[in-house]
């Protein structure tokens, strides 16, 4: 077995070794075992141009903010870098859930107005958040900013490859939008977050690869950075009808922004499933009853499903200090994925 492996790996590199025949020897670690179900032959513009984006650098370029965009520092290249490891096994993914998200995102983007002083944070399951990012770029000329910050693994808690597949599905379209000049460096951002990142619904076993992650304040734009770009409001898009608050990792960030004068509203993506309801609400708003202006009129009432939100400090998975044991709830259930929680920057190296 050793000799066989050596012949395959020497001089060929990891991708080829994985692709060409180690599967029987090493079933646990193979791109072939990543989940690319619902893979498509064509991409979002009905072409096979997605094949041109099967390199990390190409895909990253398609999705990176345009040159001189103030949002470049917040776009995470992490997941994109996994593409060179996966190689030819990668597929563009478009699922029924993404199809539904496409309808919701389109209804939102076409019938709601996003003013210049508003930033969107879309915190939906990864593939759906990508759909929203593209729809908002296409319809509203917003700049999608990817925050996906870990890699896929065959034993992964997160199926990060699904997000990668969705990014690939829309890569040619994003590239075209950028090349056509549809997105300017002044475009407002839409932060794309994978709502599964904390993997709260999962029970982690020793045989799982814990590729969950959390976002820190240092990963996201500060209030000063937002204000210098004219952003005063944040619209947080969650998945469920009953989304009440931001995810645990975002709580300190939201609280800090709120304390410095940034307003928040929450809305549910699902609320935008029915175009008729959205249009009817829009008509009601515009026909008078809700059509008001003035400093006392809440900005979020302009949105069909918007609700005001005041982030307050609350006990989260990350509350307290490791010394107090408070953050252990997350760490203890993490299959070694998180050694200790750091509020500014994570990581272990000295």
């Amino acid at each position, binding site marked *: 077995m*050793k000799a066989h492996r*050596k012949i395959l790996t020497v001089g060929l590199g*990891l991708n080829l070794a994985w692709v060409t025949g180690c599967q029987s020897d090493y079933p646990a670690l193979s791109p072939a075992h990543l989940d690319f179900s619902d893979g498509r032959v064509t991409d979002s513009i009905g072409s096979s141009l997605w094949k041109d984006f099967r390199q990390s650098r190409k895909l990253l*370029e398609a999705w990176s903010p345009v040159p001189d965009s103030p949002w470049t520092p917040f776009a995470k290249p992490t997941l994109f870098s996994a593409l060179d490891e996966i190689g030819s096994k990668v597929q563009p993914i478009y699922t029924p859930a993404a199809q539904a998200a496409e309808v919701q995102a389109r209804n939102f983007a076409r019938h709601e107005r996003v003013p210049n002083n508003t930033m969107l944070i879309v915190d939906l399951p990864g593939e759906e958040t990508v759909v929203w990012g593209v729809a908002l770029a296409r319809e509203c000329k917003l700049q999608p900013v990817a925050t996906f910050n870990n890699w896929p693994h065959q034993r992964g808690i997160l199926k990060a490859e699904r997000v990668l597949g969705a990014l690939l599905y829309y890569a040619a379209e994003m590239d075209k939008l950028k090349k056509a000049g549809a997105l300017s460096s002044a475009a407002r951002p839409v932060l794309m977050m994978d709502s599964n990142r904390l993997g709260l619904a999962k029970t982690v076993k020793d045989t799982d690869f814990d590729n969950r992650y959390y976002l820190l304040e240092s990963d996201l734009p500060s209030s000063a950075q937002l204000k210098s770009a004219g952003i005063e409001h944040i619209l947080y898009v969650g998945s469920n009808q009953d989304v009440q608050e931001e995810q645990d990792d975002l709580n300190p960030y939201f609280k800090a922004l709120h304390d410095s004068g940034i307003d928040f509203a929450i809305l549910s993506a699902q609320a935008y499933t029915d175009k008729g309801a959205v249009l009817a609400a829009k008509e009601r708003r515009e026909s008078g009853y809700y059509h008001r202006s003035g400093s006392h009129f809440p900005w979020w009432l302009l949105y069909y499903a918007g609700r005001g939100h005041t982030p307050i400090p609350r006990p989260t998975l990350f509350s307290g200090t490791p010394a107090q044991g408070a953050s252990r709830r997350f760490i203890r259930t993490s299959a070694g994925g998180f050694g200790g929680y750091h509020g500014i920057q994570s990581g272990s190296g000295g």
Partner: protein
Amino acid sequence: MLLSELVTSLSTDYFKWDCYINGRCCVSATPVFLRRQDYEELVSLARQFDRLIKKTIQMVMENTALRRPFGFSRVEQQALDSDRGRPSRYVSLVARYDFCQTYKGQWKAAEFNTDVPGGHPEAVGLNQLLGREFPEHYNPDHLLAALQQALVGDSLDKTVAVLYATGFSEDLQVAQLIRNYLTKRGIRTLLGSPINLQRRGNHAELFGERIDVIYRYYPADWLSALAYRPRQEFLRICSDLTTQVNPFAQIICQNKKISAFWWKQQNLFSRREQDLIQKHVPRTIGFRRDRQHEYKSRQAELVLKRAHGRMGEQVLLGDCATPEEWAQALADIAAYEPEQWTVQEYFHTRPVLHEDKKMYPCYGVYVIGGEVAGLYTRLSPTPRTAYDALNVATLVV
């Protein structure tokens, strides 16, 4: 090279994904040029400290009474015990020693990163990408080649497991850089967390594959965060079945109390070693509650360091703190964990001009298997080097 191109190349080719922190770019397209004389001095010092550290570790491992002043946790003690007498304690070790230069030109050792030294993507990526633009200057980087030697020697048959906290992309950067390098050279390399490691008869496996060598990029002081059973299993596997780089014994010198230990126990060392300590290690003592008043009055001359601090975390420079901050820190330490802190004499680092800005450099010298393997240089706007320092390539002129 344009900064934007540098950032893209670092992220796609060297797995450096956190070029921005707090929205600010933390890499520079302008290298730092180190005089050959300074470089040679650093190389010599790093080798000397490497020998001193090996000797210290051996001493402390063999005489458990010497462990007391370090205040190791129960889990750390267990890890050290699991390391006693095993052959891998003497394998090639991977360390990075951080030095700063004073106004008088003397080098001072700021930190000894002997457990899980980081900075690989920055040290390798920046030097390779920017070194090409200055072929006339010496590029000291051969970190990954040296690491390969330390892990598997000339063998292509060994399987390496890089164990790290898999939820942190900052650590995946390092793990993936190493895996990518080794795999391209025909060495099977797997990634996982310590918990993923399993015993199968008389060998260890990671996700069902037999492994021969562990590269532990998981700090020993984080072991206490693991659940009891998997932690015990991990310690047993490291103790009985595999070679581990670095062995747990390395935490002895990772502990910030090592400087206090050297100053206090100079009689255990040769005249030459004492000279090295006195000249290059800032005078350090363990924090004492009864000397708070003195610490308060000498604020500008002192630095407080926590035994397990990393990347400038839990380090307070009196010179950079307000009197209120300093007093509060002293009071908190005295009240809650005096045994975890050291008090070190402050030295003034000589700044350099970098892109027209006054910056304080910290030169990290990698030593692998006793030999210097590269440099990781960070520039900070203040004398304290922390996570948000500017990472720069280092070339020798």
